[in-house]
């Protein structure tokens, strides 16, 4: 099982949360939303690749 991807995504989440706190403390609330959206997009891109792998392997295994 590929646990490294799970931890990579978890660490991206924690880093984004820390950056959000720092930015909002520094009074740059307008950047908080952008950082969050960028983090979610990066993470979803990684996830989409894995979902594609899962679905194609199921398709080839069961000859659908």
């Amino acid at each position: 099982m590929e646990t490294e991807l799970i931890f990579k995504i978890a660490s991206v989440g924690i880093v984004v949360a820390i950056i959000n706190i720092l930015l909002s403390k520094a009074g740059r609330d307008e950047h908080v939303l952008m950082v969050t959206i960028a983090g979610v997009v990066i993470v979803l891109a990684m996830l989409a690749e894995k979902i594609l792998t899962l679905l194609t392997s199921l398709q080839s295994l069961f000859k659908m």
Partner: protein
Amino acid sequence: MEGIVKFCGGVLAAVMAVILVRQSKSEFHTVVGITAAVAAGLYCVTLMAGFGGTLRDAAGRFGIDGNDFATVFKIIGVCLVCDFSADFCRESGLNALAGNVELAGKLAIAAITLPLAVELLEVTVQVLGR
């Protein structure tokens, strides 16, 4: 044996990661959970890949029609794909979408099974002698 222990360890580690990310009150814990589910599903698929050939051989040896066996195998695949997708929808909080995915899966299975059901009806009619 070693593989399943590693798998369970990985799943528990993923649960800990989800709990850790949930503390930061970001929406990332859903994504981490879905990633863990995808990784676990990929592991299950690699396990299933070992069974496919053996099952097919056994079915051939016991005189089961290869075509029928392929249909059953295909239905298992449709079930798994729909189940995974519906679970991801439900995990993201989209219950209505999950219900629709499950309905689509049931309809797809019905479409695959329909020729077999018609065949069964034909055999029944033949046995009844009409």
